């Protein structure tokens, strides 16, 4: 408690004259075609964007792309028959085996290809990181232009944890050579869903 008081006292003594809050200013970047820009930015970030899908398209895509892999997990009821790995575990370490996970996200950001993933759609926070490959489904209409719009849309206090994810895990720490798949997902597919979010099973 001593240090707390000491630090705050010294800050009070040393801080400059109080300034008013900076004037509100809007940065309105508007993209002509949100989905197209979003898709380009997902690709730039090293991911794959599938711009128009129905649930059955997604399921066929997943079977075609990841059908040969085992340990497929999903939080989405409609895809339950595609998955072979149950997320019904209490210890997140058990997810280490997962080869591919498919999850939902609230929305995407066109300027950088990021999707907002939060606890609301997850059984475990580590799922999007520990799975070898990740796929995310967002409603096609749920795209915003910029990060300013993103923070108007999301209330970060509604969730215990949330993350903007743009593309797969990557590093360029060895001579600036881009390598995909550092610690998190080795690949990211984003599906833009063009129908009802919760179809009857």
């Amino acid at each position, binding site marked *: 408690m001593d240090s707390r008081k000491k630090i705050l006292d010294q800050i009070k003594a040393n801080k400059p004259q109080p300034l008013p809050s900076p004037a509100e200013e809007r940065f309105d970047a508007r993209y002509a075609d949100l989905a197209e820009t979003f898709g380009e930015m997902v690709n730039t970030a090293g991911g794959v964007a599938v711009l128009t899908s129905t649930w059955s398209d997604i399921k066929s895509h997943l079977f075609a792309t990841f059908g040969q892999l085992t340990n497929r997990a999903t939080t989405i009821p409609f895809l339950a028959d595609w998955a072979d790995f149950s997320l019904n575990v209490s210890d997140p370490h058990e997810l280490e085996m997962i080869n591919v996970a498919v999850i939902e996200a609230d929305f995407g950001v066109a300027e950088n290809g990021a999707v907002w993933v939060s606890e609301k759609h997850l059984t475990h926070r580590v799922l999007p990181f520990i799975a070898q490959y990740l796929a995310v489904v967002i409603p096609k209409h749920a795209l915003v232009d910029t990060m300013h719009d993103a923070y108007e849309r999301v209330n970060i206090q509604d969730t215990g944890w*949330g993350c903007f994810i743009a593309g797969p895990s990557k590093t360029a720490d060895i001579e600036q050579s881009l390598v995909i798949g550092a610690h998190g997902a080795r690949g990211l597919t984003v599906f833009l869903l063009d129908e009802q979010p919760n179809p009857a099973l």
Partner: protein
Amino acid sequence: MKPTELDHAGASEVFNQDEPYVNWHDETLWFVRQKRDKAAFKLPEWEALRERASQIKSYGLSHMDELLEEFERNAIRNGIQVHWAADAAEHNQIVLELLRKHQITHMVKSKSMLTEECHLNEYLTGNGIEVIDTDLGERIVQLRQEPPSHIVLPAIHLKKKDIGDLFHEHLGTEAGATDPQYLTEAARQHLREKFLTRRAALTGVNFAIAETGGFVVCTNEGNADMGAHLADVHIASMGFEKIIPKAKDLGVFLRLLARSATGQSVTTYSSHFQRPRQDRDSKPQEMHIIIVDNGRSTQLGRADFRNSLKCIRCGACMNTCPVYRRSGGHSYHNAVAGPIGSILAPNLDMRKHADLPFASTLCGSCSNVCPVKIDIHDQLYKWRQVLAKEGHVPASKNMGMKVMTTVLSRPRFYQWSGKVGRAVMRALPATVSNSLNPWYKQREMPQPPTESFREWYLRNRKK
């Protein structure tokens, strides 16, 4: 290259012995600067964003105590435990006590320049705790037992062959292998085992939000998240200047950070920690945040230098700096190198870092790329004045300045000295073209002109 006792100029001289290597280092960093430019120029509102970010940080500095208290209140409400550390030693003790309380002897850590500043790893290792840095670049320099040479690109000074040799020795990769894909895969396997077995994870903090009591950690690799979401205890360390007032301010800062750092439009992961994790059937995770001063409140009181506390650690000033690019991060003998490090370090220890404000050409490129518009080159210049006044400038430099003052303040003496100087240089070039004259290093001295401009002007004025 090991960290060195040499001053910046001395260490730069060593760095410059291998010319092709220096050229490579220079070009590599310039390439990153160019990527930054491309990303910045795509946004018409870029300059307005920088101005806005700078204003938010100015507001933050002037309300720092209130924002920290607001943050603390909200963080506690969220179930996060808040600690305050007046200096590096106290920060390190808090970390050690938390680990001991849980009988944890092994910890993973994601990138935190603050823990470099506090020398946390050495302290914990000395107390029987094993710390594994999980950012690839940081793991590389940790295995080499040297500090990072760049705050964003810790291993930017190394060639892939150095890393191949290192991984062959420590991770058992094939001898002579240099493929970045292969080496990164080896590190992934090596570190995944650490993530899965460590019960404590320490992360840095990019932004702490007063309004919400949460904090944001940005990585490209996902290592902060892998560590934190698997650990029983998550410790986040932050310098108090990481505070921002509102969640919506993140819109401004996240647009600027990665574009300035690497030219990406955003980092792969911008992770918002709001409350500790609650796994089913188990105790909630413990989440701790340590708010560190370590000289920052002193810097806040230095009107000329307080803006350095706006820094969001993007590294753009290093990538653009002609001195950094040609001298390497280790020559700055400080956790944060480059222009920003050179204005932060003297605040911590003027005597030890007196050389750093002189490690600059004052060209101003750093200030021009800074996403929060810190007047870095002006501060470098101002530090020089402070250091000279406080007696931290080498005697030879002080003496030289005094001689120059005498000469320049007496016009007749100045004219006479110029004449003598030109005559001597013409008659006996060896008096200046020798290794005792620092201006002669790496360059030929120019032919002295036959007359000064003043002489020419006097002769031609009437015509």
